[in-house]
């Protein structure tokens, strides 16, 4: 990769060339878009071990969740009786009561003799599904509203009015303490996992409206959007092709980071008992269930706690690294750290001549 693509004049040693003779133009077939993305992804991973760790953890978590969720019904279907994908059946007590972590029981056992590792693992599919679905809902609804509210926000137009309505409604939701709102929703609709998920969803989307709208406002007046408009591109196309494409990256990063936060919030709600008594294993509920044992058998509380922590951490690490993977500029910068295209002379913030020209 040369420093910068030379132009014809730049490449020629002579000051003035006659116009080039029209040579037959050979158009290379487009590179498969995924191949460069994959190569870039691998290089970023190599350059940034923390992202790699996050990525590996997320993959392990997701695969385990699928395995844990899929094995019992599959075996039921194939063998006639369900097999648990966890080392022990999470609901069957073993002979070892409140035993500390050991080779046989990685996270120890509780006072009934149940294997903590199997219990935590059994809760993984549900918790992960909650984390992904709540943020997914917030992303779709919140960002959709945010796009509309940001892109068409012009004073004294229909778009401006719609935008104002969206933003005020969002403000109302934001003004409620989210935990209290969730409690109120749960209290109204009765205690269950479903109402708890609903409650978290209701409180989650307004942040995405704010975030998206802010990003849209920052992007929609950039020169390249004006340039697209001057080229005759329609507004809807500008919205998707230039605006949405350029804010996808902060949204994705935020989404990834948020999966962990949702898990914590859900666990908190679960801990205070909003989910009601349920039979399905769930981390927050497990923490609540064993909290009395903390002074005596700390591993019983630490095991689900650790699961929440590791899941959060994995998504956070991945989210931070996504910034580098998604942005073609920083992807290049990372890959070509040895030979950047421009000199970092402008390192002192007083860039030599940046946008020096004074416009009217």
């Amino acid at each position: 990769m040369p420093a910068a693509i030379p132009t014809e004049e730049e490449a020629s040693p002579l000051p003035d060339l006659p116009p080039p003779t029209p040579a037959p133009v050979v158009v290379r077939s487009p590179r498969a878009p995924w191949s460069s993305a994959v190569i870039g992804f691998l290089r970023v991973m190599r350059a940034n071990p923390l992202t790699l760790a996050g990525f590996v953890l997320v993959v392990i978590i997701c695969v385990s969740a699928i395995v844990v969720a899929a094995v019992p019904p599959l075996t039921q279907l194939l063998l006639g009786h369900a097999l648990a994908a966890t080392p022990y059946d999470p609901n069957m007590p073993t002979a070892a009561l409140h035993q500390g972590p050991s080779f046989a029981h990685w996270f120890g056992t509780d006072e009934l003799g149940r294997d903590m590792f199997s219990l935590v693992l059994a809760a993984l599919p549900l918790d992960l599904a909650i984390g992904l679905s709540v943020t997914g809902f917030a992303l779709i609804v919140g960002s959709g509203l945010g796009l509309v509210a940001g892109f068409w926000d012009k004073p004294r137009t229909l778009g401006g009015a719609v935008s104002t309505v969206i933003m005020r409604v969002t403000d109302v939701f934001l003004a409620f303490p989210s935990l209290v709102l969730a409690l109120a929703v749960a209290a109204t609709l009765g205690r269950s996992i479903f109402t708890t998920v609903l409650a978290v969803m209701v409180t989650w989307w307004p942040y995405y409206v704010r975030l998206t709208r802010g990003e849209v406002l920052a992007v929609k007046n950039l020169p390249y959007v004006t340039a697209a408009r001057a080229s005759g591109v329609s507004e809807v196309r500008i919205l998707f092709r230039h605006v949405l494409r350029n804010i996808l990256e902060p949204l994705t990063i935020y989404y990834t980071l948020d999966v962990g936060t949702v898990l914590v919030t859900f666990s908190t709600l679960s801990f205070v008992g909003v989910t009601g008594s349920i039979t399905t294993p769930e981390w927050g509920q497990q923490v609540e269930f064993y909290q009395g044992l903390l002074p005596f058998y700390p591993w019983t509380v630490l095991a689900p706690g650790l699961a929440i922590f590791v899941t959060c951490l994995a998504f956070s690490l991945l989210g931070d690294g996504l910034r580098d993977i998604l942005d073609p500029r920083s992807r290049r910068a990372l890959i070509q750290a040895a030979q950047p295209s421009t000199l970092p002379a402008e390192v002192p913030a007083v860039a030599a001549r940046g946008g020096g020209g004074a416009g009217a």
Partner: protein
Amino acid sequence: MTGPLLETRNVTKHFPLSRSLTQFFGGEARLAIHAVDGVSVQVAAGETLGLIGESGSGKTTLGWLMARLHSATSGEVLFEGQDVSQLSGAPLRRWRQNLQVVFQDPVGSLDPRQRVWQIVSEPIQAQHNFSKAKLRTLVAELLPTVGLPPDCLDQYPHEFSGGGRQRLSLARALSLKPKLVVLDEPTSALDVAVQAQILNRLVSLQREFGFSYVLITHNVAAVRFVADRVAVMYLGKVAEVGPVRDVLEHPVHPYTKALLAAVPVADTRRRRTRYKISGEVPTLIRPPPGCRFAARCPFVIDRCRVEEPLLLPLVGASNHVVACHRAAEVADVAPESLLVTVPPPTTAAA
């Protein structure tokens, strides 16, 4: 064609300021920034009109009005005799194939997420429904005309130098072979050596394809080389319009003289110690009555402060118009007289 390709008739653009609640209920009038105030200029087919002026002169706003990126507060923008200032929606987008814009900022005006072929073919895509292969072929044929290699279709804009990015902008503007290209400070972010390449390219493209240009810039040197006619703007008004040689060699309006005298020249024989024009550009919110340059003008008389001068042709030169009450009297004053010059330093230290 008989009439001008593009004509603005008394076009005005005000940007309203918001009022505070007390101002609103106190019944204060809504203030506005008078960015462009009653400007009439023409661009003929195949010619280049240079718009020069400083920040706040309204030259960019006027360019954007011509390109219909702003809608005029009042007045008309006629393109081939048709008023485009009120166009909107699909007709406006269809009309845009006649007029394209090259923006000042070669970094910001290219979408960082798009590849070269997507950027350059954007105006084509907006007008036609071509296949990807056809678009790529069109772009690959177009790139050499602006001096870029045709095999960079899949690069991203950040892989180009500043000059290369400005060539991409140019290729995008030319992709539909528009009749008029508005060049908004096309070289102000570039180094002189690259600027010379781009300006040469602009002129040779115009010779080849017969585009009209509107060149908006504060760079007198660029206007000198590219323009056929020049309009000098100050505070939202046109001060002087005429053929480029006439305006730059024999400026009549005191502001044009002040502007030309202020341009530093890379010639130590013209070194000066002092520039005699004082004061700063006044605010555009409540523009002064009378001539807008009156507050800084060295030739000001009382009449200038009350009566607004009209753009009138000079005696004996019908295509050179000036808005100055004292045009006839100051016409022969050389811009250099606004400078106090000294001979160049003679010896080195030591």
